[in-house]
């Protein structure tokens, strides 16, 4: 049973560029949440997608956007990259009916902005 798959694993981008990160949820899960984890910090909620719509957004600017496809996979897009966007980006999947039953996380995409 495949868990959450994220790609790429590592990425280096230049300030001002745009980046797209991808996530395939665990089999049977239909909800995808994205988190940003700065070095030495806990994950911070970016947004959650269910039924191809954004259900809730954390305290992140509009430069952060996302998408969910009919097969439940998801993308995180970040425009106009800043040095401060350097972080580990985590995708987590869950069952919408079990939103309070914990996530399954992927291993993340390490984004470095130079």
């Amino acid at each position, binding site marked *: 049973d495949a868990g*959450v798959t994220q790609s790429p694993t590592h990425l280096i981008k230049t300030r001002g560029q745009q980046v797209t990160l991808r996530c395939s949820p665990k089999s049977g899960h239909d909800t995808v*949440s994205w988190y940003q984890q700065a070095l*030495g*910090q*806990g*994950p*911070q*909620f970016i947004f*959650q997608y269910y039924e191809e719509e954004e*259900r*809730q957004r*954390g305290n992140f600017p509009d430069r952060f956007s996302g998408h969910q496809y009919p097969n439940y996979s998801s993308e995180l897009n970040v425009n106009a990259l800043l040095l401060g966007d350097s972080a580990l980006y*985590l995708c*987590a999947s869950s069952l919408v009916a079990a*939103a*309070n*039953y*914990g*996530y*399954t*996380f*992927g*291993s*993340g995409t390490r984004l470095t902005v130079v």
Partner: protein
Amino acid sequence: QQQVKQSPQSLIVQKGGISIINCAYENTAFDYFPWYQQFPGKGPALLIAIRPDVSEKKEGRFTISFNKSAKQFSLHIMDSQPGDSATYFCAASMLGGFKTIFGAGTRLFVKA
């Protein structure tokens, strides 16, 4: 209101000892309190979770103690092993909510 405060920031325990990590919250609307374990280069993995209608939950060597009146909960790792060396995050979420609030993490090192 939305924060979960976690302590200590780091912890060193001898093999076979008890590791204790504490968390506190303010928002009484939180009703689900998971703990996640994260190894370097990996995403967090759900370890154990509790709801506020019970005061303790045990799964193997891992126990959550929950004090609703004090708005505090803690993770106890009994018979700590070197393989338990990782970063541990407490977290909280609300019934019907869509996001989970994480603590800042505790780096645990178990000395052999």
